[in-house]
């Protein structure tokens, strides 16, 4: 059985990679992908603790993971739709070109 620490380290690594992508990359698609990575890091935590924390074999963590995956799919769909609309109106998906939330 893989020790839970390994799984948590992997999850943390994934989270940091996702966070880096969200904060640094300019392309909106890549930022969306990074958000997916962030989500997956969190889902990995659910699964890890589900098999590790007593009582063992509690399915709650796995159910949460499945739910989160489903929602993440919806979220990705909505995000892509927004970017599509952005591209149609602004002709770009570069985030530093889009300043609609400005004062």
């Amino acid at each position, binding site marked *: 059985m893989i020790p839970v620490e390994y799984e948590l380290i992997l999850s943390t690594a994934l989270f940091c990679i996702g966070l880096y992508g969200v904060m640094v990359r*300019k392309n909106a698609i890549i930022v969306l992908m990074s958000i997916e990575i962030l989500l997956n890091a969190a889902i990995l935590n659910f699964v890890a603790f589900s098999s590790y924390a007593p009582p063992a074999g509690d399915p709650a963590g796995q159910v949460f993971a499945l739910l989160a995956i489903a929602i993440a799919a919806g979220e990705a769909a909505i995000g892509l739709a927004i970017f599509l609309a952005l591209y149609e109106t602004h002709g770009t998906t570069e985030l*530093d070109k889009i300043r609609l*939330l400005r004062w």
Partner: protein
Amino acid sequence: MLENAWLAWMILGSPLIAFVVVGLVGRRLPEGGAHVVVGSLAASLVIAVYFLVQVLQQGAIGNSTATTVPGFTWIPGDPATGEGAIGMNLLIDNLSAFLLVLVSFLSLLIAIFSIGYMHEEAGKPRYYAEIALFVAGMLGTVSADNFLQLLIFWEIMGLCSYLLIGFWYHKPEAASAAKKAFLVTRVGDVLFLAGILVIWNVFHSFRFEEIVQKIPVLWGGAYTPQLALLIPLFLFGGAVGKSAQFPLHAWLPDAMEGPTTVSALIHAATMVKAGVYLTARSFIFLVPIATGGGILVQAVPWNAILVIAGIGAFTAVFAGSMALANYDIKRVLAFSTISQLAYMFLGLGAGAYLMASEAAHGSTEVATAGYSAALFHLTNHAFFKALLFLAAGSVIHAVHTNDMRAMGGLGKLMPWTSKTMLMGALALSGIIPFSGFFSKDDILAVTFETGASNPLFYLMWVAGIGTAFMTAFYTFRMWLMTFHGEFRGHGHPHESPRVMTSVLIVLSVFTIASGAIAFLTNGFGNLIFYEEPHAALPLITPLLEANVVELALTGLSLALALAGVGLAWAVYGKRVISPSTFTKTPTRAFLHSMLVNRYWIDDWYNAFGSRTVAGFARAVDWFDRNVVDGIVNALGRGGVVVGALSDLFDRKVIDGAVNSISLETIRSSLALRTRQTGQVQNYTWVIVLGIVAILVLAVLLGILPRILGRP
């Protein structure tokens, strides 16, 4: 008790209604509403006669017939006992019932006369409305059952006299005469009011009947001898003002500036007679009061009675002498009114003194001779003075002047006026058998009789008998100057219209006949004095009992009156004596100018007014301008300074704070809004850094488990 007593209110209510009607819609009525006023006065007369008949029948002449006609309670008194209540009620007794008839009758005649006299005047509705109110005031005065109510109606009359004397208000003389009448009578009214306040403080009642009952109870207690002297003097002060006695006589001659009908009303029926009436009503303070155990003589204010009689005697001579040298027909009559009113006061004073001194000597019979003589003279004077004034008005209507030097010879041109005025003149002079003779002789007889108790009354009798001579002289001087000789004026005078002459004829009949009232009732006192039957006239008594002294007195006063008439005839009729004889020597000229200038009393009053009063007013004015205004202005300036400071504080401190707060808000927000870049990733950075900072802080502070919800 009287039948239909409530109707008594209509005696004064009817002219009041006429006042309102004429005052409101008189302009649209023919003759300015004269007929409404005449009708209302006729209604008053009918009701007044109805009550007089009842009083005479039920009182069976000589019995007490006082009836109080309840009105309403004006100010409720003690809730338990009802004491101290002030009401408005009418007192109908012999005296008031008789005077109601007299007043309404004469006012009616004068109102009828006015239809002719005022025909060509503008402002007739005003005239008739004021006449109606004036008469209502007098009717209310003589029927009031308490002093306060009397004062109210008394003041209504004062107001109306002001309005009517100033009827031609565009004439400066008329306007100032109206003011003079108002102000001079006001002096008396203030005294009257003071007397009323003293009465209230002593008796806690204004009602004549209650006061009479309380005098014996309160005597020695609240009613002290000083107050007993003070109250009648205060009340007499009011009478002096209203009846134009010395020293408040100055307004009456000037009051001649009003229409002659107003003068007739003031002199005959209303106003000046109210003073005599008030003094007659205040007899309750002057004469001994019968109590259960005897007669209370101690409360008699002898000095107050002497003052009343003395002022009467003095004013009689004083005013009579001023009439001797006057050329204004109305002013001669005005002075004669003052003089004749003074006779009435003399009679009241002498009568009160006689009554009191006889009671003091143990006599149980009430001597009412003076009282009834004075009121008899009031009645007779009312008739003949109304006649004289209206006849004078008829003359003035014809020649358009008051100056007797511009008249003369009118006897042929105005036969009715001349003859009726002769009746009045004979009555005023006291020639037998005209009415004035009986009452004047009555008063003189009472005065002489009182002389036995106090020799001062002999002196007053001499004054009275001297006045009788002067009265006869100036009356016939006036009549002869007006109607005898050649016409000295301009124009073509003609007899007045019938509406005027018929009134004169009616009045002359009454002038002759009013003397007979006393014979019909076996002494005038029986008509107006209740409680005690009064003996017959002094004139009849000596004739029956052959009292030589009194017959001689009567003969003396008659002889002096005839002498006066004779002297006037010699000077102005036959011209045997030239009028310039009276101004030949310096002494005579001085006396003449003294009389013409009315003893300079009016000048003194004017000087008093223009120097003392105006000087005082100037001093007060200076004080007002410099001291009071100074204080007020300083306060005002202080207020301005405080206001400026407050304004400054408001602008600088409060507005400054508010403005700078908003300015800083704007400035800081201008600086801060640049932080809102619109770059999503900038916001992400802030969020991440914030979370990291919170976590680091939580770890450093060791509170991470608590944040995570773990113990």
